């Protein structure tokens, strides 16, 4: 841990830091993030909660360099993502695993090819790649699916394959975008449990974006609520659970009526 902390101080590896980030699409009034700032420490599990349209998915695109903010800094694994060269960006991507909302598995590839996709330029034989895929699939509780196509799996299985792919090259940082959306409560808990296990077994820094409070309480060391483009409240799951902020209370209790603006209107 001391070594990890030193590495963090020296080069910021395994950390995420957003500093006064402003993002928008279109005109002056269409700001999505308005001075968004937070940081995630090495080995920490940070959960971002927020309503639909709060800019959570845009945040994922910022973190992986698919979008650039108007201003502010996005530092992931010690790299200034918006200003990185393509080469630096791809090198950084090798230290980041991303679990997409719907798995984003490649339709035309089998499950084992999907899981080991990021390892295919390492000169490993197919036999070796299959062995790695089987091992990673076992970690997420899947067996005997190596030769199937993504279309032959259920939504929950696809998410688990997505997670196996995200951890295949043992990343320093794991980013999960709505990992439990569209799943039944049991499968949601299974996915949350898996993310927790990955964090504990592999020691990865985890950033999870969700609006599933059960999952957020389970996964998070800290939870930050994204509201109107910035972090409205941040704290441990217990601090969020007992927050007196009326907007946080409305969100975590899932009430339709309250001070929270929904799609620009007050509910």
């Amino acid at each position, binding site marked *: 841990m001391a070594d990890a902390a030193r590495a963090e101080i020296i080069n910021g590896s395994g950390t995420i830091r957003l500093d006064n980030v402003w993002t928008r699409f279109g005109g002056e009034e269409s700001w999505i993030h308005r001075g968004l700032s937070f940081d995630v420490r090495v080995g920490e599990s940070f959960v971002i909660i927020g309503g639909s349209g709060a800019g959570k998915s845009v945040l994922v695109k910022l973190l992986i360099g698919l979008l650039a903010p108007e201003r502010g800094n996005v530092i992931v694994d010690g790299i200034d993502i918006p200003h990185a060269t393509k080469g630096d960006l791809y090198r950084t991507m090798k230290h980041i695993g991303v679990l997409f909302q719907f798995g*984003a598995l490649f339709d035309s590839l089998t499950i084992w090819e999907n899981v080991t996709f*990021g390892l295919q330029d390492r000169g490993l034989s197919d036999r070796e790649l299959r062995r790695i895929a089987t091992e990673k699939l076992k970690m997420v509780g899947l067996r005997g699916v190596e030769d199937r196509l993504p279309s032959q799996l259920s939504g929950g299985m696809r998410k688990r394959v997505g997670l196996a792919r995200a951890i295949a090259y043992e990343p320093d940082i794991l980013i999960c975008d709505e990992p439990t959306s569209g799943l039944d409560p049991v499968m949601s808990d299974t996915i949350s449990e898996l993310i927790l296990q990955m964090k504990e077994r592999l020691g990865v820094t985890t950033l999870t974006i969700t609006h599933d409070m059960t999952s957020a309480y389970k996964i998070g060391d800290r939870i930050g609520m994204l509201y109107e483009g910035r972090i409205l409240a941040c704290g441990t799951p217990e601090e969020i659970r007992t927050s007196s902020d009326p907007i946080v209370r409305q969100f975590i209790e899932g009430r339709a009526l309250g001070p929270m603006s929904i799609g620009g209107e007050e509910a």
Partner: protein
Amino acid sequence: MESGPEFLGSMWVRMAWISSIGRYGVDSVARYGRVLLMLVDTVRCTPQRPLRFHLFLHQCLHVGVYSVPVVLVTGAFTGAVLALQTASAFRLFGAENLVATVVALSMTRELGPVLTGIMVAGRVGSAMAAELGTMRVTEQIDALHTLATNPVKYLIVPRVWAATVMLPCLVIFSDLLGIMAGRFIMVDVLGNSPVAYYKRTVQFLDFEDIQIGLIKAALFGLSLALIGCYQGYSVRGGAREVGFAVNRAVVSSIGMIFVINYLVTAYFF
């Protein structure tokens, strides 16, 4: 002279028309500009490692081999119709023996490349737009990026070069089938001499004619794959936008085939 609210209203309608035409023109130029930028990116990415030659071969199979049946049917029936039409016209002034020359030159210089290009644009250009568009809306292209893989290198480079290489090969098949179908009509149906048909075919057909057709085919392949890939790659939204992208890919690439056909013909004229 007109005045008042009615005049202002009609002026407003006219201005709106002019403005929408102008906007369409600007958008079109911008779109083709972005297609050209994608070509630059494709060329730049091509030599980068890993080369992934197997992806190129896989695309050659899809673009080339699987298009052979449709191209053979198109080439054969075009050659047959061309022979019948020219034979009925040339018979009027006793020039039936020139039908072979007309079929050979028309197929190699114009009809072979253009019709093959159109068929492949419909079959392959649309499939490229649909596949890449679906990959975009299901975040598969974003996933490629997070797996440290350049999506242009992985998806677009093999498709563009496979279409550029395979179109000329398909055109050779189309030309041959067209000429053979013309021979079938003239010799087996209309009873002309096979030797005369052969002689008239090779007498006026230069290597340059075939070469021009193949150059056109390569350019058609390049443009239809680039447009198909661009339309799919730049999809934003959902299934509806993928449908629009497929539609635009086919219409734009067929339009581009006619433009390129004219430009190459004019260049070698």
